[in-house]
């Protein structure tokens, strides 16, 4: 770069000196006939340049497109009046939106097509070459800038008065600290282990039908049935949606012989009635696509499949853990109740889960 300084090239005429390369050829094949710049293709006249009748035709086309645009805009206004939105009639909203939107869209599109057609057929079409500019300023400008900077340093004493300079740097650093500290608000407000590990389920909580909150008699759950279940206290809960997102349960009745319960969990079911968390252990979608003959539970989001007979273990898809089981039993009147809360956090993994 330094050896170019003395040339002081004018803007737009930068030329790099081309010297033959002195690199060892090695095994590379150096072509003897380097590619030559073919230059610009010959200028080709458009049909509108040659034929005045075609030019007139193109001009008519452009103005027709602009007139069309006026018509479409008027049609949009007319459609807005002709198809009013009637209260309680969704079909009228559809008609109103459709014709209003079509009118406006075609109106704007006609302007755009007309403008492009105009420029392509009627405006001058000479090919021109614009050379690149040097990004570097002229030496005079650069010297002037350095001079101003030096003067500023001298007059303010920024380089000389180190106490002022250093305290200013310190102040600037401290100033952004509050902004960094408030990032803490992005983190969980309370310990996730407290919030995510516990749901509304507890010993003796009745299982009820979503959304009515009707208690479920064990005898009502016939073979092959699937009940969508919420805890009885959910409907009285203050943050209904948050609690439901954790406590939603799917209740199914299988033939007790089909169930393969692991040791210690044999009495978590009641006569083949099992209750599993509906929240997928992958990313928390509701898993409720129950196939009553294959006993597979499918998650609609990423196709994780759980086998209800094998304690909801994952048999396909990205989920890594089985769905948590809710231990259930019946009360004195034969209604289904929970034995306890879930024994593990429901839903997807979180950092603090194994702590």
């Amino acid at each position, binding site marked *: 770069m330094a050896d170019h300084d003395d040339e002081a090239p004018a803007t737009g005429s930068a030329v790099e000196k081309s010297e033959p390369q002195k690199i060892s050829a090695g095994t590379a094949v150096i072509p003897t006939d380097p590619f030559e710049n073919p230059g610009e293709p010959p200028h080709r006249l458009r049909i509108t340049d040659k034929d005045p009748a075609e030019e007139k035709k193109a001009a008519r086309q452009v103005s027709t497109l602009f007139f069309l645009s006026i018509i479409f805009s008027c049609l949009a206004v007319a459609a807005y009046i002709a198809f009013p939105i009637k209260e309680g009639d*969704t079909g009228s*909203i559809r008609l109103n939106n459709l014709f209003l939107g079509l009118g406006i869209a075609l109106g704007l599109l006609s302007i755009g097509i007309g403008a492009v057609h105009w420029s*392509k057929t009627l405006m001058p079409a000479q090919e021109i070459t614009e050379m690149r500019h040097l990004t570097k300023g002229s030496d005079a400008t650069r010297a002037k800038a350095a001079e101003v900077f030096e003067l500023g340093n001298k007059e303010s004493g920024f380089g000389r008065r180190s106490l002022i300079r250093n305290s200013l740097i310190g102040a600037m650093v401290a100033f952004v600290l509050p902004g960094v500290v408030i990032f803490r608000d992005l983190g969980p407000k309370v310990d996730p282990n407290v919030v995510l590990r516990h749901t509304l389920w507890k010993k003796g909580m009745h299982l009820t039908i979503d*959304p009515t909150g009707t208690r479920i008699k064990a005898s*009502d*759950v016939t073979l092959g*049935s*699937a009940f969508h279940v919420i805890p009885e206290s959910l409907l009285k809960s203050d943050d209904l949606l948050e609690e439901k997102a954790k406590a939603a349960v799917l209740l199914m009745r299988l033939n007790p012989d089909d169930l393969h319960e692991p040791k210690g969990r044999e009495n978590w079911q009641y006569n083949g009635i099992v209750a599993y968390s509906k929240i997928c252990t992958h990313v928390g979608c509701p898993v409720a696509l129950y196939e*009553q003959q*294959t006993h597979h539970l499918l998650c609609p989001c990423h196709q994780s499949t759980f086998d209800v007979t094998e304690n909801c273990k994952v048999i396909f898809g990205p989920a890594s853990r089985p769905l948590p089981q809710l231990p259930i039993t019946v009360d004195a009147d034969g209604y289904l109740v929970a034995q306890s809360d879930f024994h593990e956090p429901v839903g997807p993994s979180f950092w603090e889960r194994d702590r």
Partner: protein
Amino acid sequence: MISHKTASSSGRSAKKSKRSGRRSPLATVSLIVVGLLTTGGAYALFTSTATADTNTASSTSQSQVNEGKKLFAANCATCHGMAASGSSAGPSLIGVGSAAVDFQVGTGRMPLAADGPQAEQKPVQFTNSQTQAMAAYIASLGTGPSEPASKYLKADGNAAKGAELFRINCAMCHNVAGAGGALTEGKFAPSLKGVSSKHIYEAMLTGPQNMPVFNDLNIKPQEKADIITYLKYLEKNPSPGGFQLGDLGPVSEGLFIWIFGLGAIVAVTVWLTARSN
């Protein structure tokens, strides 16, 4: 010539009588069979007339059950067994009720055309009265869910309540607009568009194939009527959002915008940069 002929025929008959004189060993067996059939038939005739006399008010007559039994033996017994108690090829039908028969046969799912992931809908093979006869026969084998009362099928319930119940209980498989969806290993939840109210009700009641059962204690009859109302409302009212693209959500909508939206942008870009002739 005539005398010659008679002589030869008389000779043959003489041979025959000589054989029957010894009496075939099968004669006893055939006699017993004939005797049993006559007495059994007469007994069946007497008892059927007796029950028909006592059950005149009931909608399913004994003749209907008999008709259904014949149809069952001819069309269903290969898989479900002669006594409808099931075989390795098909489940037992004792206790499934008339609603299950009306759904499976009435939508053309049964008789099954071929073994596959699930029984698919085909053109219906039986007339309504034949279906009713088979339903009556199966219902006579054991109590099960029967066909719904017509007051629940009028689609005049609460569509908003039905929509909530549909979202909770049905939408995960059948799609929130009832357009259907995929399940595991080639199975699928069918679209509910154009399905009759009665068949929707019966499907909930009986849980055909891999669909879970939603009995009347889970979703009450009036709630089922609300769900039907919601589905019929969807069929009758146009989508305010414009083209539904099969109601399949992001899959069909994404495909549409990638092909037509992006295609239009590419076409406009080519036109903008092309030289005019």
